[in-house]
């Protein structure tokens, strides 16, 4: 006999499905544009430390959308006997790994730029022949950097809208990083112009600032992924503040007459909210099983994000054991 009761499969409502489809398209667009940016930057970066750091940041920027696409597919898989809770944790694990990698990368790039400064390495930026004309490489680098700022900022704005609608935190984090890409490009441009004006250290300083930014992204995302895996209470998309859904669900469910007291224990699982509901029924309540099932249904239909809440009855809410 199959003793495991697997979780039910989850279907997003129509509107959210459409949003998700759009979000996936944006993820593909991001990967494409970041790919072109990576190539353009690689061809022009020469010996500029700032450009190299910005290039590394752009490569890392391709990872969140890839994680998003792969993870939405995995997390949608039906729970089975081996994985009765399903795969809704997969995105968080992937994100934690990626965020840790980027944190270490940021530290390394910070070391590289500090070393450059310490060793007083003067970046050499000479001429380049393009279509038979000679041009100072710095101008080509700046052009590449300007290009590198445009698609991410536009895509970032679009993705933030999606993230808010879908309550997708990883998408939000990705979008926020994209939106800030203009500051990376600006720092690198000032670095190159600085070198052009004779300030050899400008490039290394710009590289250091960009590396700090990368490190900070790493830290933020590691924290996000860790709190998520620690089953933190549901939070807003863009901050660590509590999401209203916890209070609202508790209030809505407590309306039932037969309930003396009701408390919830919820957590975020990707876009969804799940958890347990503790009910202390009024004394002599009849048809308790039916009432509990009705309560479960009520929770499910309360908000599209609510998934697989388990309702349990307790004799006394105050008791420590439950």
């Amino acid at each position, binding site marked *: 006999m199959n003793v495991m009761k697997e979780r039910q499969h989850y279907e997003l409502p129509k509107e959210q499905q459409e949003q998700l489809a759009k979000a996936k398209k944006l993820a593909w667009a991001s990967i494409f544009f970041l790919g072109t940016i990576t190539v353009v930057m690689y061809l022009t970066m020469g010996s500029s430390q700032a450009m190299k750091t910005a290039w590394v940041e752009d490569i890392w920027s391709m990872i969140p959308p890839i994680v998003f696409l792969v993870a939405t597919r995995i997390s949608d898989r039906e729970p089975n006997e081996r994985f009765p809770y399903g795969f809704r944790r997969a995105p968080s694990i992937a994100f934690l790994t990626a965020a840790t990698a980027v944190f270490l990368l940021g530290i390394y790039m910070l070391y590289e730029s500090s070393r450059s400064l310490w060793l007083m*390495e003067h970046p050499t930026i000479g*001429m380049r022949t393009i279509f038979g004309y000679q041009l100072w490489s710095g101008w080509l680098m700046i052009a590449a950097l300007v290009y590198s700022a445009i698609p991410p900022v536009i895509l970032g704005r679009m993705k933030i809208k999606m993230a808010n609608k879908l309550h997708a935190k990883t998408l939000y984090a990705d979008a926020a990083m994209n939106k800030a890409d203009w500051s990376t490009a600006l720092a690198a441009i000032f670095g190159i112009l600085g070198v*052009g*004006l004779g300030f050899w250290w400008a490039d290394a300083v710009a590289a250091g600032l960009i590396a700090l930014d990368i490190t900070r992204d790493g830290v933020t995302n590691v924290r996000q992924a860790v709190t998520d895996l620690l089953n933190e209470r549901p939070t807003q998309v863009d901050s660590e503040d509590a999401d209203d859904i916890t209070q609202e669900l508790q209030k809505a469910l407590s309306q039932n007459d037969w309930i003396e007291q009701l408390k919830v224990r919820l957590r975020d699982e990707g876009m969804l909210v799940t958890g347990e509901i503790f009910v202390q029924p009024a004394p002599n309540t009849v048809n308790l099983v039916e009432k509990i099932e009705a309560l479960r249904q009520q929770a499910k239909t309360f908000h599209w994000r609510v998934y697989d809440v388990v309702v349990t009855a307790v004799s006394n809410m105050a008791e420590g054991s439950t």
Partner: protein
Amino acid sequence: MRKGLIFGLWLLLLGCTFPQDPRLTTERVQNHIMHVGVSENEPWVIHQDDGTPTGVEVDLVKTFADQMNADIEWHWGGMSEHLEALNQFELDLAIGGLTTSAPGTSAVGITQPYFETAVVIGVPAGIPSPQSLSDASIGVIRGTAVADYVRRQDAEPLFLSEEESIDMPVAVPHWRLDDLNLDRTEHSLHTLKHVMAVPPGENRWLTELEKFLFEQPPIEP
């Protein structure tokens, strides 16, 4: 506020020469003295009996110095020594048949390639051009650094000394064919890019040199 900043920057750039030298090499050299490190390497740099240099790169540098209205002080030595001296800002320029494949060029400033050497296979009169290079025996004059290019084609380098008379296909730079009485075959093994070296980060100096080299007529070593 942001517009003002950008405009100000544009004015600043317009007013100054761009790019500039952190250590003012161009200003120091112009109308004064250019310190050039030379390393013997025919036909690029040749050490004459009276101690003065001549050669393809020497001629180029002399013309450049004229343009800069500077006298030249030649400093003989090995190339790695010169590269280190450039790094320490003791020399303004170093020449000696330097190519992009030479070691030690990453720490100094390097011009864009001003000339390309094709490493080709030449045959003396009467010897046929090899059909396929796979497992073929190709002559390599010891010390000319072309053996690897031969090996990459799955051929076997056979080392010859400079004086030997040649009776087999040989891998040589294309401009030595006439010299050695060889006919060029269709086989081209590699392209070497010739550059000159300057101190690191002296970007105005480097771009002046690069502009000069770009304007020169094609070279025939």
